[in-house]
């Protein structure tokens, strides 16, 4: 195409350059990549994926099935960008890749943001209907958000030569825009697309913020922004899109949609050398008239209708254009590059053919209202026999469709309908009155003659393999016919059989034609066939935009304790437990993990160790009924706990499976603190609140999570009393004064603290709880006080080894949601009272003797450490498949025992203690002896020091 000086909504006074496949292109501000390629004579954009056919620009909108390319280079290049939308800027690089993209490697340097907003009326589309709706709603008092995908308001008016109120349409647009911008309750978002409609007015938008600017001008701004808007009313004013026609070789570059041709004229000042127009309707004559007006040779209008007599065809004839009624384009010819060289025209139904040379064939098969947004919440459509188009069939609450999207064509009609819809939407949100609002515009649009119900020109030789229904997926009439002869009777099956309509442009130029061809084939009414459903997003959205800034560390918050900086400074290796970072072990020098853990364990058993236990969940319970409440949730009794004492407890879900465990402290008559597992804290609070609020609202209990309010330092080992005496000289830590499971408020290292004698290792141990702000100071004080005694910080791995030696299970390691307290040998903790889940323990499967039960295991070879997760079988020799009788849940090397050991769940395990079973591994089979879970210090003599 060639550029006309002074035409188009571009700035022809300025020239900018960018590259297409490495070639420099000359462009003007306001151009898109597609317009520049056309202006530079690049008609062939690339080849189709399946059939390797040359393809070119078809139209100037997002419906174009071919105009795609890779934009940018390096790790931030983006495949399959819409060349009809990408605005050129100095330095842009674009590459030809039309239907299949290449994902860049590396980490994207672009930034994608998110924003949330509320409004009363959201208007999608700023064409004549959308502008009128937005203005009417805004002036009625509603908060309006007006959204349009183009850089400028006006919608279809940007690509038309239309007069509104006796002046060029752009002056009307400018006036409406000014009134909207002057209204503080109105927000206008251009370069923005509504891509999803959710329940209760949840609208998702994608805004192009800075991607249309040269790199230097982006200045750190996000490339795009995803908006999530909650609106009362949605006005769908998304316009309509033109349908092509199906005929042999209809995919040659240069075969374009008629409205696209006039769009390139009005928006970009581009015109063909010589055009032919092929139409079923009057609208295409607007292209004819506009091209004539621009001095273009419109050689012929080929109209399917026998006698086009509307005002527009008559006007075309008056201007000297040869209008041939009852005719069709039956084939096209190609130039050397594969682009259009000419068209073969013949009377409909056969007759003498004529070859007409042209560089552009402007085609119109009618118009399809675009109301995808209406479908997302279950909106339906019906085929309108007068319009020959789908229109909405039902009303979706909170949504209104207007303008061309509602099948209303003509600028004045769209303005009138938009105005009324805007008033109605505002009224629905409590603003103004639809019946007494300002009057709608009164004027008539040009009357048009009815379009022809016509889709395709059959190939003369019967070879339909070059008559394209879907350019993007290379679906031809032959493919459609093959599918329809297979027994398929449904458009969804047709879509899946042929892939018609599944392209990146959502099949906008293909779906309706495919459905109509299916209806023709079965000789059915079209409404019985329909089209495949539109599914969100209405335009593709990058993964990066969905992710926004929730990447890396922001994907999920990291929780650290008050003492974390100390752990880091002392070389801790961390373990992720839920969101928490916990020290796993503290390697010294060149120690590996095993060496570090052995050293840490030995220190606890022989001297004194310290551990950061702050991550355990802590729930503060207050009120006179806390005891009753806890008794109903824990398997054991808590209500009888004396003030200043603590007790271990286990909770089940209603199904009787162990859910969480921890120590409960009674710190005052009406104040308990329940500790939970690190990972289970939130779930336990939820669980407690649920029962408290919904089952037992009569109980006087108040729950507060205090996990992050307290830091906990566990000081553990035979020498702990010495350290404690140094730290808290006022506190009597002798056995008689400070018993196991006793809780005391005390001053430790000069800080007020709550000290509890709780042990998860079997050793004498004190847990010092202080407000989080004192956590680090307390840790440092304990470390300093313990240093003369070689106090050893230890991590979760040593803690796990120590507890396993004592047969203490860990929720989530020894349990997996299928393990009851009885399976764990906790019969002694099932008090004689009702608690949540108790009834489940009586079900037949729970009473089976061969349930998996917790046991200890000792590999017969004391140096062989099993992998956790090893399965257990009866015999040393086996053939696959083999029956498994249990699995290893924990497996460690014990410093205290000088050997390996573990815990396992084994069928009927408790009655099999003393037996040997086998762990079959890839490289060996390990014999293990089943033993009592308490392997070390079974008498519990170490607990009191």
């Amino acid at each position: 195409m060639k550029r006309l000086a002074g035409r188009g909504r571009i700035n022809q006074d300025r020239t900018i350059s960018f590259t297409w496949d490495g070639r420099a292109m000359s462009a003007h501000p306001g151009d898109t990549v597609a317009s520049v390629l056309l202006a530079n004579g690049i008609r062939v954009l690339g080849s189709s994926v399946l059939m390797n056919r040359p393809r070119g620009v078809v139209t100037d909108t997002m419906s174009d099935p071919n105009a795609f390319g890779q934009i940018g280079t390096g790790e931030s290049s983006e495949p399959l960008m819409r060349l009809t939308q990408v605005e050129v800027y100095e330095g842009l690089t674009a590459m030809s890749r039309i239907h299949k993209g290449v994902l860049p490697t590396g980490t994207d340097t672009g930034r994608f943001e998110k924003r949330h907003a509320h409004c009363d009326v959201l208007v999608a589309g700023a064409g004549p209907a959308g502008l009128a709706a937005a203005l009417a709603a805004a002036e009625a008092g509603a908060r309006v958000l007006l959204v349009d995908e183009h850089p400028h308001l006006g919608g279809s008016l940007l690509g038309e030569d239309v007069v509104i109120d006796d002046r060029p349409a752009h002056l009307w647009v400018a006036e409406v825009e000014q009134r909207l911008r002057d209204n503080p309750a109105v927000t206008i978002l251009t370069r923005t697309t509504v891509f999803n409609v959710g329940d209760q007015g949840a609208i998702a938008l994608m805004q192009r913020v800075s991607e249309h600017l040269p790199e230097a001008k982006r200045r750190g701004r996000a490339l795009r922004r995803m908006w999530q808007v909650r609106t009362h009313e949605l006005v769908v004013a998304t316009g309509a899109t033109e349908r092509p026609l199906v005929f042999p070789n209809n995919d040659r570059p240069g075969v374009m949609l008629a409205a696209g041709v006039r769009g390139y004229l009005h928006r970009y000042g581009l015109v063909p050398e010589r055009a032919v127009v092929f139409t079923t309707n009057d609208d295409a004559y607007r292209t004819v008239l506009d091209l004539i007006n621009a001095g273009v040779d419109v050689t012929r209008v080929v109209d399917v209708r026998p006698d086009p007599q509307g005002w527009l065809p008559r006007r075309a004839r008056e201007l000297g254009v040869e209008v041939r009624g009852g005719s069709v384009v039956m084939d096209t010819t190609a130039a050397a590059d594969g682009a259009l060289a000419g068209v073969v025209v013949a009377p409909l139904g056969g007759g003498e053919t004529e070859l007409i040379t042209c560089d552009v064939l402007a085609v119109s098969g009618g118009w399809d209202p675009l109301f995808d947004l209406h479908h997302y919440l279950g909106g339906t459509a019906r085929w309108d026999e007068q319009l020959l188009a789908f229109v909405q069939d039902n009303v979706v609450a909170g949504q209104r469709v207007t303008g061309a999207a509602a099948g209303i064509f003509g600028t004045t009609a769209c303005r009138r309908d938009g105005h009324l819809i805007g008033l109605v939407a505002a009224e629905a949100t409590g603003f103004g009155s639809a019946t007494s609002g300002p009057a709608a515009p009164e004027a008539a649009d040009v009357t048009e003659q009815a379009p022809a119900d016509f889709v395709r020109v059959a190939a003369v030789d019967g070879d339909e393999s070059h008559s394209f229904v879907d350019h993007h997926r290379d679906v031809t009439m032959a493919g459609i016919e093959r599918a329809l002869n297979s027994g398929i009777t449904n458009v969804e099956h047709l879509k899946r059989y042929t892939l018609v309509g599944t392209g990146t442009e959502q099949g906008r130029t293909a779906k309706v034609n495919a459905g109509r061809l299916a209806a023709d084939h079965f000789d059915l009414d079209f409404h019985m066939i329909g089209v495949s459903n539109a599914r969100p997003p209405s335009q593709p959205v990058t993964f990066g935009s969905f992710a926004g800034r929730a990447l890396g560390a922001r994907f999920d918050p990291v929780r650290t304790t008050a003492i974390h900086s100390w752990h880091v400074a002392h070389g801790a290796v961390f373990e992720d437990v839920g969101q928490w970072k916990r020290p796993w072990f503290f390697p010294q020098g060149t120690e590996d993990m095993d060496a570090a853990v052995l050293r840490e364990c030995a220190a606890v058993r022989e001297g004194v160790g310290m551990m950061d236990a702050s991550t355990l969940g802590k729930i503060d319970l207050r009120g006179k009924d806390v005891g009753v409440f806890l008794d109903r949730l824990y398997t054991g009794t808590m209500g009888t706990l004396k003030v200043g004492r603590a007790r271990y407890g286990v909770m089940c879900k209603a199904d009787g499976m162990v859910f969480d465990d921890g120590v409960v402290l009674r710190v005052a008559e009406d104040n308990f603190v329940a500790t939970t597992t690190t990972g289970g804290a939130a779930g336990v609070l939820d669980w407690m609140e649920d029962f408290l609020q919904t089952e037992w609202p009569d109980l006087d209990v108040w729950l507060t999570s205090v996990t992050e309010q307290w830091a906990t330092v566990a000081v553990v080992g035979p020498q702990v009393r010495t350290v404690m005496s140094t730290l808290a000289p006022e506190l009597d830590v002798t056995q008689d004064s400070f018993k196991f499971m006793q809780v005391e408020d005390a001053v430790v290292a000069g800080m007020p603290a709550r000290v509890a004698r709780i042990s998860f290792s079997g050793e004498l141990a004190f847990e010092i709880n202080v407000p989080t702000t004192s956590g680090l100071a307390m840790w440092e004080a304990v470390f300093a006080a313990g240093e003369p005694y070689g106090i050893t910080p230890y991590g979760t791995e040593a803690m796990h080894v120590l507890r396993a030696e004592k047969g203490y299970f860990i929720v989530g390691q020894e349990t997996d949601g299928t393990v009851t307290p009885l399976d764990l040998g906790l019969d002694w903790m099932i008090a004689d009272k009702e608690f949540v889940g108790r009834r489940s323990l009586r079900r037949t499967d729970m009473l089976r003797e061969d349930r998996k039960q917790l046991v200890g295991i000792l590999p017969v070879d004391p140096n062989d450490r099993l992998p956790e997760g090893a399965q257990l079988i009866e015999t040393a020799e086996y053939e696959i498949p083999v029956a498994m009788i249990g699995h290893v849940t924990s497996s460690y090397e014990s410093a205290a025992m000088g050997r390996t050991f573990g815990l396992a769940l084994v069928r009927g395990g408790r009655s099999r203690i003393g037996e040997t079973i086998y762990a079959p591994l890839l490289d060996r089979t390990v014999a293990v002896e089943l033993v009592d879970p308490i392997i070390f210090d079974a008498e519990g003599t170490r607990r009191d020091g």
Partner: protein
Amino acid sequence: MDPNEHALHNAPFLWRNPEPKSSYDAVIVGGGLHGLSTAYYLVKNHGLTNIAVVERGWIGNGNAVRNTTIIRSNYLWDESAAMYEHALQLWEGWGEELDYDILFSQRGVLNLAHNLHDERESIRRVNANRLNGVDAEWLDAEAVKEFCPIVDISPEARYPVMGATLQRRGGIARHDAVIFALGRACDALGVDIIQGCEVTDIDVVDGRVTGLQTSRGPIAAGKVGLVAAGRTSLLTAMAGFAVPIQSHPLQALVSEVYEQILNCVVMSNAVHVYVSQAHKGELVMGAGIDAFNSYAQRGGLHVIEEQMSAGMQLFPQFSRARVLRTWGGIVDVCPDASPIVGLTPVENLYVNCGWGTGGFKATPGSGYVMAHTIATGEPHALNRPFSLTRFETGELIDEHGAAAVAH
């Protein structure tokens, strides 16, 4: 390339569109993949001849076209492993048996582990799989990178990859082709596939099913199999009993089409991602289940946002990949995340539901054992544990508890 390459994957003739007869020996309610598979095996394995599949919409219009086509059998519990492994073995010969290019590609399924708990449970599962005769391997992070070069294994990641289980025999298939293949095979075996036929009531006389009321008239039936996934509760209510399933939205999406970049299936429980790249080049990715009950076939956008953040943790280079279409299926989930396949309180009425997020991969096996159950009136050994009565005894097959990825 052949001009109609993709169309030629599909057979020139698929099925008749018969009118319903007044009576059948057995009627399968639900023309999804499991329903068609059941009908297929009723004829092929059990020699029944007078059967119909009734489908309210078009065949395959439910979860058959709303899944991520992942096929694997590396389940933890013996009962599940046996069921899914049987299905996987059938998949391995199914394309040939059905004489259809279903693009079954055994490209390997990675289940990533991101913390010590994941690692322990993964190794437990690998060991259990191996001893059950299911192929399974544990890969450390370096080996994961070697197998799937585009996974980010940097230790600084918020959820670092510590390793993965690999089932090399796992993979994907083309779901649309499976619909066509099964529909054609059933039709060729004489099964009446009746589309656009909604069941409005189930006739039960003296505790025994006798037929169906449908939108296309009454149909008498000697036996009835309900294979209706998320809509099962609506059907069992007609027969006077309830099944312990809840129907939830499960969203998934496809991207635009890209040159091959991802060579296997990657799943991660901890960050809720499962992704593969289909033959045509689009990335297919699943999200988590929306928590609420729904029959609306849509879920919340925030679920997709979370899924995309999660995906970007593992594959930073997906940033400029674009979501082309999202959809929501209705998944029917049992309390133990395992299916129900077997007898019901109504004589001659059988139920197959509760596959949750795992149905596609079970297609051949589910139909196989359901057909056995319907034909003989007794469950097959493989589906005996998956009875409706297990909820009463407590003998559950708890796949959530077992932390196996249930997709």
